[in-house]
């Protein structure tokens, strides 16, 4: 693992909004009263990212993902705490920091609406001081990788969402930033476009050793791409570590799905064990929940097949989505 390139320490961001007065002359009173509502978008977030890592930054809507990214990119000034990217404080050296980073927001484009895609690329080249050789080489490479040939001359406003997103990705890669922030890059994309995007992200991370932070609420993206995830909710980090450990820690259970030969499910008596329970039952099928660390699968299967005729058996691994949902639910109950 390389050296630390992104460091956030006790990062916090509050937003204050004037409290809206309702009723007669509400607008005017809003101006005069000067009462503020304070929302804490990010609350005491700390983490480090090493050069070359691909980290999934996960959370439900409004968890504080985008706000964190905006502090890392220098767009927002933190209310308190420190942030350091490639040895710089992003908001203080915003323009210098900009040369090191690429930012793709799924919700908006950094391309120029009225310009053909290729013109936007040329302008990016000028903005980020890309040498002509580097420009030609990268334009070739990414046009090919992302399949942009067909619409290079089309004004950005006429591109489909998938085309535009590919255009946006190519645009940031033209100047080969050390760090890439991808904020919900697959939002609204169809399966094909999404697949293409994910393949590209993986390749960029592997080939150019670009550090990537990917925010998303789509867990499939994360399972595909990231070894490490940071999970946040209500502005706080709930988990930071490898994907597998998250599953082990929060969802140690497996599910044994048994399909009986007859549709009428026979009465089944499970081994009297604290870590085995009947989860669900419907026409000729049962789901048995167990902890593989405590109960041997073979014993469980033997116990079931001894009692009745079974036509099919399978073991279900918990998926990340279920795990994350569980964690959020637990967190919401606790808070």
């Amino acid at each position, binding site marked *: 693992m390389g050296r630390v390139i992104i460091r956030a320490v006790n990062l916090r961001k509050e937003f204050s909004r004037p409290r809206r007065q309702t009723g007669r002359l509400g607008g005017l009173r809003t101006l005069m009263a000067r009462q503020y509502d304070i929302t804490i978008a990010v609350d005491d977030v700390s983490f480090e990212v090493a050069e070359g890592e691909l980290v999934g930054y996960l959370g439900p809507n409004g968890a504080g993902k985008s706000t964190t990214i*905006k502090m890392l990119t220098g767009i*927002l000034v933190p209310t308190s705490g420190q942030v350091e990217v490639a040895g710089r404080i992003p908001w203080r050296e915003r*323009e210098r920091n900009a040369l090191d980073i690429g*930012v793709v927001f799924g*919700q*908006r*484009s950094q391309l*120029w609406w*009225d*310009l053909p895609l290729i013109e936007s690329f040329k302008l990016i080249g000028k903005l980020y001081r890309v040498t002509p050789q580097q420009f030609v080489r990268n334009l070739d490479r990414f046009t090919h990788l992302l399949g942009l040939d067909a619409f290079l001359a089309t004004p950005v406003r006429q591109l489909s969402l998938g085309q535009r997103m590919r255009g946006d990705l190519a645009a940031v890669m033209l100047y080969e930033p050390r760090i890439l922030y991808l904020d919900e890059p697959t939002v609204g994309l169809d399966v094909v476009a999404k697949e293409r995007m994910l393949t590209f992200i993986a390749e960029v991370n592997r080939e150019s050793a670009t550090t990537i932070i990917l925010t998303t609420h789509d867990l499939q993206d994360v399972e595909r791409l990231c070894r490490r995830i940071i999970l946040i909710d209500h502005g706080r980090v709930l988990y930071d570590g490898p994907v597998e450990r998250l599953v082990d820690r929060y969802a140690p259970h497996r599910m044994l799905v048994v399909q009986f030969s007859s549709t009428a499910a026979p009465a089944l008596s499970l081994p009297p064990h604290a870590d085995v329970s009947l989860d669900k039952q419907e026409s000729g099928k049962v789901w048995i929940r167990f902890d593989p660390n405590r109960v041997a699968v073979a014993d469980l299967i033997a116990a079931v097949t001894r009692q009745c005729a079974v036509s099919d058996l399978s073991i279900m691994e918990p998926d990340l989505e279920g795990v994350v949902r569980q964690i959020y639910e637990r967190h919401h109950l606790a808070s």
Partner: protein
Amino acid sequence: MSRLWRNRRAFAGITVVGIRTFFTYRSLVTFFMVSMLLQVYLLKVVWTAIYGSQPRIDGVSIQTLIVYLTLTNVQLHFTFSDVPRLVRNRLREGQVATDLTRPLGFPAQLVANQLGGTIAGLTLLLPALPLALFLGGLSLPASPVAGLLYMGSLGLAYLIELLIGMIVGLIAFWTLEIWGIQVILGFVSRFFSGALVPIWLFPGVLRKVAEVLPFQAIASIPASIFIGRISGRGVVDAIGLQGIWIVLLLALAAWVWRRAQRRIVVQGG
């Protein structure tokens, strides 16, 4: 400054975007131009009627006054700053997030954009000059030196308008909506710039107010130099005043920008 030099290609690039964007708004600008020409014509009619048979009012002949009014109105069209609208739109659409991740500072991007708009605007304004001459009236400057000083003073006027535009635009970082401010400012600046009624004809208090506001430095000062109403020692004072306004507004704009950066809220997540 050295930073801007390093970013000269970036600056030029954004200027080109400004030029290209202008042409998508060309029909709108044409309407502004038509209303400007109409205003010049109506001012000529009204002021000719006011003058009646008097050869001069306050030492200025009707012919000279018409040149002054034509010039100020054409000038206001030239110096017009589109920065408030630009900032407001970028904020409303949340695009300011992208702007802030560019290696060229946000204020520099605004300047480059406006410069592009001005350059493109000249392609409409220059062909309209003969029309302005026809509907209003133009003449040669009072002297060749006055002509040169006029160009310099017009350049300073452009900077003053640009800085005012920046400050008003940046207010949107607090209020998001600045349309009301733009409407009031549009009226106040037009009136106190002396483009409707020359400032030397304002009654006592109003004239004092006009003299402490920056708007006369945008229209009245350059045009008065052109027609020779301000001359000799007066020119030095007038251009010096423009310089003072630039320094003051520059300091204010820098201060507002520093504070605005802490106020950023990106619309739409």
